[in-house]
């Protein structure tokens, strides 16, 4: 992330982590490509269309809630629905985020989510009446605790909430005078989004000569550069960003892409089975 929280670390601590990673050892005993245990809870907010709570290990916790509302579409895309993301880095996670303190990190995270989802999802399925009404999904994320790897955690939460998201079917009738009448469909059915289209993010960090997944906040500070990869269950890679103030060789980049792809597809598989 561009604006790191102030986790203070001495050079000696950084060296300790880097030397450890070079030998394949991490501070908490994991392998370089291991995730911390992930706890997923769905359906925590009954008034929402979809919701989830994700806890990554003991350190990062995120809530995500999806609400759906009807709205007129944008003029340039009259039969496409929309998604609006908002990440609230709340003061629960860090007192520095009070008020507008967490805005920079929040914007950056929203931008990753928005850019990836806008390329993956077929928004035409969210159209109710072309040119008149479409579904707008408000995806709101609240960050409760930050212990590293925030983007991956948020993407898991958004995926879990959207996969559970139930959108009621509505019909719109227009009478002879041109008035619109919106009613719930008489069949009382709901539609679900296509989970196979939704991406999951994986951040591949380069620490010294090794590639590390699911970094803690301390490990994040030691990374030369990070590659964010978003892949959906169909295997379509929808979003890459090289972050951080370091540069990489092309071969390193390709290695990071392939690691990101492998890890992300494993994550999708585990989510499908859970």
């Amino acid at each position: 992330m561009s604006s790191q929280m102030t986790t203070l670390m001495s050079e000696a601590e950084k060296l300790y982590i880097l030397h450890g990673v070079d030998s394949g050892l991490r501070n908490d005993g994991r392998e370089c490509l291991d995730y911390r245990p992930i706890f997923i809870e769905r359906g925590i907010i009954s008034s929402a269309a979809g919701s989830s709570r994700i806890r990554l290990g003991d350190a990062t916790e995120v809530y995500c809630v999806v609400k759906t509302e009807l709205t007129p579409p944008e003029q340039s895309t009259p039969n496409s629905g929309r998604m609006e993301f908002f990440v609230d880095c709340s003061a629960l996670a860090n007192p520095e985020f009070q008020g507008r303190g967490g805005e920079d990190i929040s914007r950056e995270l929203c931008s990753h989510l928005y850019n990836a989802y806008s390329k993956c999802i077929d928004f035409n399925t969210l159209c109710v009446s072309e040119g008149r009404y479409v579904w707008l999904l408000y995806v709101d994320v609240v960050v409760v605790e930050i212990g590293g790897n925030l983007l991956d955690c948020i993407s898991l939460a958004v995926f879990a909430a959207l996969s559970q998201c139930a959108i009621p079917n509505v019909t719109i009738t227009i009478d002879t005078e041109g008035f619109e009448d919106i009613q719930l469909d008489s069949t009382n059915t709901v539609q679900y989004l296509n989970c196979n289209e939704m991406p999951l993010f994986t951040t591949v960090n380069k620490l010294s000569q090794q590639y590390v997944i699911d970094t803690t906040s301390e490990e994040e500070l030691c990374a030369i550069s990070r590659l964010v990869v978003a892949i959906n269950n169909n295997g379509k890679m929808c979003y890459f960003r090289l972050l951080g103030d370091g540069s990489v060789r092309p071969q390193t980049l390709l290695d990071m892409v392939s690691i990101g792809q492998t890890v992300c597809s494993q994550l999708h598989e585990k989510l499908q089975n859970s």
Partner: protein
Amino acid sequence: MPIDTKRNNAPVETFSYHLLGDINITENGIKPKDEPNLITGNSLCLRPVYVNVGVIPQANGSAIIEIGETKVVAAVYGPRESARVEDYQTRAKLTCDLRYAPFSGRQHKPFGVRSDEERDLSSQIQHSLSPAILLNKYPKSHIDIYVNVLQDDGGVLAAAITAANCAVVDCGVEMLDVVVATTAEIHGASIVLDPSLSGNFGDRADATLTLALMPSTEPPQITCYALDGGCDVTMIGDVIDVCTEACVALHKVVGDVVRAGYLKQDIGSNTNSDQLMET
């Protein structure tokens, strides 16, 4: 009436005539654009490039780049002393601010709060240039880069990175190499290098990649890699190769211009002018 910049104004409900059809307005009237070509093979030409430095004499460094119809101007002010004692750092602080001019796109952009896209691009430019600039040579100072997009015809991020870099070199700040960037689009199995929005390819790419490189080392160092959209993993290596070759060609052009700009300057006007760049 002038816009009230102190308030959040109501959303603008105007739309451009471009929504009514893909047309060009010429002196002889309205001319419909040709149908977008179907992409069959690869298209690997860079658009014509014009680079110049020192275009804003009042700034410490400046550059303008025109890639096809995309026009971007960059100015650098710095290294300047940090005013606050709390900002003490052993490295210079690099900030970048990109703005789209209101007339830059097909639709008029109201002036006011920075949009998310501008912030995103600003931070990407900053991340692309940080590895190349020797920030630890300028402690307790900050270097501010301001980029203005005058016309957006595709490849804005790449043009902005290259322009910002030329401006920093023009400023005399020490750097490892000149960073250049190019854009490529993936349409199915074909790669289109340096696409333009108004060109004949339509704007329905599967994926768009912006790659920024420091070509002087072997292998070159990648400082920015931003890919939006879906593509096959097998295409990624090919696209990187295509962009790398284009960047190397662009690097030669940009290097010549920047060196010529340096040699034209008086020795006394710039304290770092004795540190010419060796490529």
